[in-house]
Protein backbone atom coordinates (compact mmCIF):
# COMPACT_ATOMS: atom_id res chain seq x y z
CA UNK A 1 0.00 0.00 0.00
CA UNK A 2 1.31 3.44 -0.96
CA UNK A 3 1.56 5.81 1.99
CA UNK A 4 1.22 9.55 1.44
CA UNK A 5 2.30 12.13 4.01
CA UNK A 6 -0.46 14.67 4.71
CA UNK A 7 1.03 17.97 5.93
CA UNK A 8 -2.18 18.79 7.81
CA UNK A 9 -2.59 15.40 9.54
CA UNK A 10 1.20 15.40 10.01
CA UNK A 11 1.54 11.71 9.26
CA UNK A 12 1.56 9.13 6.50
CA UNK A 13 -1.83 7.76 5.55
CA UNK A 14 -3.01 5.17 3.06
CA UNK A 15 -3.38 6.22 -0.57
CA UNK A 16 -7.01 5.04 -0.29
CA UNK A 17 -7.82 8.23 1.63
CA UNK A 18 -6.44 10.55 -1.09
CA UNK A 19 -7.47 11.89 -4.44
CA UNK A 20 -5.23 13.35 -7.12
CA UNK A 21 -5.92 16.97 -8.07
CA UNK A 22 -3.83 17.73 -11.15
CA UNK A 23 -0.79 19.99 -11.56
CA UNK A 24 0.16 22.33 -8.73
CA UNK A 25 1.39 25.91 -9.08
CA UNK A 26 -0.76 26.69 -12.10
CA UNK A 27 -1.21 30.44 -11.73
CA UNK A 28 -4.68 31.67 -12.61
CA UNK A 29 -4.40 34.83 -14.74
CA UNK A 30 -5.60 37.89 -12.87
CA UNK A 31 -6.77 39.49 -16.12
CA UNK A 32 -8.90 36.55 -17.24
CA UNK A 33 -11.27 38.64 -19.36
CA UNK A 34 -8.41 40.18 -21.36
CA UNK A 35 -6.34 37.15 -22.32
CA UNK A 36 -6.46 35.57 -25.74
CA UNK A 37 -7.95 32.16 -26.48
CA UNK A 38 -4.42 30.80 -26.91
CA UNK A 39 -3.35 32.13 -23.54
CA UNK A 40 -6.48 30.70 -21.94
CA UNK A 41 -5.82 27.35 -23.58
CA UNK A 42 -2.28 27.41 -22.24
CA UNK A 43 -3.50 28.13 -18.70
CA UNK A 44 -6.55 25.91 -18.68
CA UNK A 45 -5.75 22.82 -20.75
CA UNK A 46 -2.06 22.44 -21.45
CA UNK A 47 0.12 20.53 -18.99
CA UNK A 48 3.70 19.31 -19.30
CA UNK A 49 3.07 15.66 -18.33
CA UNK A 50 6.76 15.24 -17.38
CA UNK A 51 8.54 11.95 -16.97
CA UNK A 52 10.07 12.05 -13.51
CA UNK A 53 9.61 14.89 -11.04
CA UNK A 54 6.19 16.52 -10.96
CA UNK A 55 4.49 18.91 -8.53
CA UNK A 56 0.87 18.05 -8.01
CA UNK A 57 -2.18 18.94 -5.97
CA UNK A 58 -3.54 16.17 -3.82
CA UNK A 59 -6.56 16.11 -1.57
CA UNK A 60 -6.86 14.13 1.66
CA UNK A 61 -10.52 13.74 0.83
CA UNK A 62 -11.30 10.81 3.15
CA UNK A 63 -9.19 12.28 5.96
CA UNK A 64 -8.85 15.93 6.90
CA UNK A 65 -10.37 17.00 3.58
CA UNK A 66 -7.56 19.45 2.81
CA UNK A 67 -5.83 20.12 -0.52
CA UNK A 68 -2.03 20.11 -0.37
CA UNK A 69 0.84 19.85 -2.84
CA UNK A 70 3.30 17.04 -3.35
CA UNK A 71 6.46 16.38 -5.34
CA UNK A 72 6.22 12.94 -6.92
CA UNK A 73 8.10 10.86 -9.45
CA UNK A 74 5.80 9.84 -12.29
CA UNK A 75 7.94 6.81 -13.11
CA UNK A 76 8.56 5.26 -9.70
CA UNK A 77 5.45 6.76 -8.00
CA UNK A 78 7.74 7.80 -5.14
CA UNK A 79 6.51 10.78 -3.16
CA UNK A 80 9.54 13.00 -2.46
CA UNK A 81 7.67 15.28 -0.09
CA UNK A 82 4.33 16.96 0.53
CA UNK A 83 3.78 20.53 1.63
CA UNK A 84 0.87 22.77 2.52
CA UNK A 85 -1.10 24.61 -0.12
CA UNK A 86 0.30 28.10 -0.63
CA UNK A 87 3.90 27.14 0.19
CA UNK A 88 6.48 27.62 -2.59
CA UNK A 89 7.67 24.80 -4.81
CA UNK A 90 10.41 23.07 -2.77
CA UNK A 91 13.83 22.02 -4.02
CA UNK A 92 14.15 18.26 -4.19
CA UNK A 93 17.87 17.58 -3.66
CA UNK A 94 19.42 15.37 -6.30
CA UNK A 95 16.32 15.39 -8.47
CA UNK A 96 16.00 17.56 -11.53
CA UNK A 97 12.95 18.45 -13.52
CA UNK A 98 12.59 16.64 -16.83
CA UNK A 99 13.73 18.59 -19.86
CA UNK A 100 12.85 18.23 -23.52
CA UNK A 101 15.82 15.91 -23.85
CA UNK A 102 14.72 13.55 -21.09
CA UNK A 103 11.01 13.57 -21.89
CA UNK A 104 9.95 10.74 -24.14
CA UNK A 105 7.59 12.27 -26.65
CA UNK A 106 5.19 10.36 -28.83
CA UNK A 107 7.02 11.65 -31.85
CA UNK A 108 10.34 10.29 -30.58
CA UNK A 109 9.19 6.88 -29.46
CA UNK A 110 6.03 5.97 -31.35
CA UNK A 111 5.83 8.46 -34.16
CA UNK A 112 7.31 6.17 -36.76
CA UNK A 113 5.92 2.96 -35.37
CA UNK A 114 4.06 1.10 -38.07
Amino acid at each position, binding site marked *: *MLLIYCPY*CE*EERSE*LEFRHGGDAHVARPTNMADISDEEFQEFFFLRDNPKGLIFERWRHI*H*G*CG*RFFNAARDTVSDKFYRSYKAGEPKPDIPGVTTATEKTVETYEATEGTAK
Partner: protein
Amino acid sequence: MADQALRKAPLAGRHGGSSGARVTPAGPATRLALRAGSDAIGTLSLAFGLELPQRPKTSASVTGRHALWLGPDEWLLIDENGADLLGIASGVSALHSATDVSHRNTTILVSGPDAAAAIAAACPLDLGTSVFPVGAAARTVLGKIEIVLLRTGKEDYRVECWRSFSPYAFGMLVEGAEDAGL
Protein backbone atom coordinates in the same frame (compact mmCIF):
# COMPACT_ATOMS: atom_id res chain seq x y z
CA MET B 1 -52.48 4.83 4.83
CA ALA B 2 -50.55 5.65 7.96
CA ASP B 3 -51.10 9.22 9.06
CA GLN B 4 -47.77 9.48 10.78
CA ALA B 5 -44.28 8.72 9.47
CA LEU B 6 -42.29 6.51 11.80
CA ARG B 7 -38.59 7.01 12.32
CA LYS B 8 -36.81 3.68 12.13
CA ALA B 9 -33.28 3.09 13.39
CA PRO B 10 -31.24 2.01 10.36
CA LEU B 11 -29.72 -1.06 12.00
CA ALA B 12 -32.51 -1.94 14.44
CA GLY B 13 -32.37 -5.51 15.71
CA ARG B 14 -29.03 -6.37 14.14
CA HIS B 15 -26.28 -8.03 16.09
CA GLY B 16 -23.17 -9.90 15.18
CA GLY B 17 -19.48 -10.35 15.59
CA SER B 18 -17.50 -12.97 17.39
CA SER B 19 -16.46 -13.81 20.92
CA GLY B 20 -13.48 -11.48 20.42
CA ALA B 21 -15.30 -8.52 18.87
CA ARG B 22 -18.95 -7.64 19.41
CA VAL B 23 -20.59 -5.56 16.69
CA THR B 24 -23.73 -3.70 17.77
CA PRO B 25 -25.71 -0.69 16.55
CA ALA B 26 -25.35 2.28 18.89
CA GLY B 27 -28.36 4.17 20.18
CA PRO B 28 -29.49 7.39 18.52
CA ALA B 29 -27.40 10.54 19.01
CA THR B 30 -27.42 14.14 17.87
CA ARG B 31 -24.57 15.17 15.59
CA LEU B 32 -23.19 18.38 14.25
CA ALA B 33 -20.81 19.05 11.36
CA LEU B 34 -18.96 22.12 12.62
CA ARG B 35 -16.63 24.43 10.69
CA ALA B 36 -14.94 27.42 12.28
CA GLY B 37 -11.78 29.49 12.13
CA SER B 38 -9.29 29.53 14.98
CA ASP B 39 -10.70 32.81 16.35
CA ALA B 40 -14.08 31.16 17.07
CA ILE B 41 -12.73 28.03 18.78
CA GLY B 42 -12.70 29.55 22.27
CA THR B 43 -16.29 30.79 22.14
CA LEU B 44 -17.57 27.56 20.61
CA SER B 45 -15.70 25.43 23.17
CA LEU B 46 -17.29 27.43 25.96
CA ALA B 47 -20.76 27.00 24.45
CA PHE B 48 -20.44 23.24 23.92
CA GLY B 49 -18.80 22.66 27.29
CA LEU B 50 -15.71 20.94 25.94
CA GLU B 51 -12.44 22.05 24.43
CA LEU B 52 -12.60 21.68 20.63
CA PRO B 53 -9.44 19.69 19.82
CA GLN B 54 -6.89 21.39 17.55
CA ARG B 55 -4.45 18.57 16.96
CA PRO B 56 -4.86 15.94 14.21
CA LYS B 57 -6.53 12.67 15.23
CA THR B 58 -7.63 13.91 18.66
CA SER B 59 -11.00 14.27 20.37
CA ALA B 60 -12.52 15.65 23.55
CA SER B 61 -15.28 13.93 25.50
CA VAL B 62 -17.46 15.06 28.40
CA THR B 63 -20.37 12.90 29.66
CA GLY B 64 -21.55 11.43 26.39
CA ARG B 65 -20.65 14.46 24.30
CA HIS B 66 -17.72 14.14 21.90
CA ALA B 67 -15.88 16.62 19.69
CA LEU B 68 -13.76 14.95 17.02
CA TRP B 69 -11.04 16.75 15.04
CA LEU B 70 -11.69 16.01 11.36
CA GLY B 71 -9.63 18.75 9.73
CA PRO B 72 -7.83 22.01 10.60
CA ASP B 73 -11.17 23.89 10.85
CA GLU B 74 -13.62 21.01 10.98
CA TRP B 75 -15.15 18.93 13.78
CA LEU B 76 -17.81 16.29 14.23
CA LEU B 77 -19.78 16.75 17.43
CA ILE B 78 -21.75 13.83 18.82
CA ASP B 79 -24.09 13.91 21.80
CA GLU B 80 -25.22 10.48 22.98
CA ASN B 81 -27.79 12.09 25.28
CA GLY B 82 -29.55 13.78 22.39
CA ALA B 83 -28.78 17.37 23.40
CA ASP B 84 -29.82 20.05 20.93
CA LEU B 85 -26.35 20.78 19.52
CA LEU B 86 -27.68 22.97 16.73
CA GLY B 87 -29.56 25.03 19.29
CA ILE B 88 -26.31 25.58 21.19
CA ALA B 89 -24.47 26.54 18.00
CA SER B 90 -27.18 29.01 16.99
CA GLY B 91 -26.56 30.89 20.24
CA VAL B 92 -22.91 31.52 19.34
CA SER B 93 -22.30 34.78 17.54
CA ALA B 94 -18.68 34.01 16.57
CA LEU B 95 -18.47 33.15 12.87
CA HIS B 96 -18.95 29.44 12.26
CA SER B 97 -20.93 26.99 10.18
CA ALA B 98 -22.97 24.24 11.82
CA THR B 99 -25.05 21.60 10.10
CA ASP B 100 -27.23 19.08 11.91
CA VAL B 101 -26.22 15.64 10.63
CA SER B 102 -27.88 13.62 13.42
CA HIS B 103 -29.83 11.45 11.00
CA ARG B 104 -27.29 11.40 8.21
CA ASN B 105 -25.00 9.27 10.31
CA THR B 106 -25.46 6.20 12.39
CA THR B 107 -22.99 4.49 14.68
CA ILE B 108 -21.78 0.94 15.03
CA LEU B 109 -20.00 -0.07 18.23
CA VAL B 110 -17.16 -2.55 17.97
CA SER B 111 -15.90 -3.89 21.31
CA GLY B 112 -13.67 -6.63 22.60
CA PRO B 113 -10.06 -7.82 22.43
CA ASP B 114 -10.34 -8.33 18.64
CA ALA B 115 -12.12 -5.02 17.98
CA ALA B 116 -9.12 -3.36 16.33
CA ALA B 117 -8.49 -6.43 14.19
CA ALA B 118 -12.14 -6.50 13.11
CA ILE B 119 -11.98 -2.86 11.97
CA ALA B 120 -8.54 -3.30 10.41
CA ALA B 121 -10.02 -5.98 8.14
CA ALA B 122 -11.29 -3.14 5.96
CA CYS B 123 -9.68 0.02 7.32
CA PRO B 124 -6.14 1.12 6.34
CA LEU B 125 -5.61 3.29 9.42
CA ASP B 126 -2.87 2.22 11.84
CA LEU B 127 -4.80 1.29 15.00
CA GLY B 128 -1.75 0.57 17.16
CA THR B 129 -2.06 2.03 20.65
CA SER B 130 0.96 4.32 20.23
CA VAL B 131 -0.53 6.09 17.20
CA PHE B 132 -4.25 5.57 17.85
CA PRO B 133 -4.68 5.67 21.63
CA VAL B 134 -7.95 5.89 23.56
CA GLY B 135 -9.56 9.20 22.52
CA ALA B 136 -8.02 9.17 19.05
CA ALA B 137 -10.38 9.94 16.18
CA ALA B 138 -10.08 10.15 12.42
CA ARG B 139 -12.05 10.29 9.24
CA THR B 140 -10.90 7.39 7.09
CA VAL B 141 -12.29 4.59 4.94
CA LEU B 142 -13.83 1.19 5.66
CA GLY B 143 -13.90 -0.95 2.56
CA LYS B 144 -15.62 1.19 -0.07
CA ILE B 145 -17.12 3.80 2.26
CA GLU B 146 -15.97 6.73 4.34
CA ILE B 147 -16.23 6.45 8.12
CA VAL B 148 -15.26 8.43 11.20
CA LEU B 149 -13.58 6.28 13.78
CA LEU B 150 -13.36 7.12 17.49
CA ARG B 151 -11.54 4.99 20.00
CA THR B 152 -13.60 5.25 23.20
CA GLY B 153 -11.77 2.62 25.25
CA LYS B 154 -8.91 0.17 25.22
CA GLU B 155 -11.09 -2.32 23.35
CA ASP B 156 -13.95 -0.05 22.27
CA TYR B 157 -14.53 1.85 19.04
CA ARG B 158 -17.34 3.95 17.57
CA VAL B 159 -17.66 3.63 13.82
CA GLU B 160 -19.67 6.53 12.40
CA CYS B 161 -20.98 5.99 8.90
CA TRP B 162 -23.65 7.40 6.65
CA ARG B 163 -27.07 5.91 7.34
CA SER B 164 -27.60 4.45 3.88
CA PHE B 165 -24.18 2.77 3.99
CA SER B 166 -24.73 1.26 7.44
CA PRO B 167 -25.86 -2.25 6.32
CA TYR B 168 -22.64 -2.45 4.28
CA ALA B 169 -20.51 -1.19 7.18
CA PHE B 170 -22.22 -3.54 9.61
CA GLY B 171 -21.73 -6.54 7.33
CA MET B 172 -18.10 -5.62 6.76
CA LEU B 173 -17.40 -5.29 10.49
CA VAL B 174 -19.18 -8.57 11.31
CA GLU B 175 -17.13 -10.28 8.63
CA GLY B 176 -13.96 -8.71 10.04
CA ALA B 177 -14.89 -9.78 13.56
CA GLU B 178 -15.45 -13.36 12.45
CA ASP B 179 -12.15 -13.40 10.55
CA ALA B 180 -10.30 -11.92 13.52
CA GLY B 181 -11.54 -14.77 15.70
CA LEU B 182 -10.17 -17.49 13.45
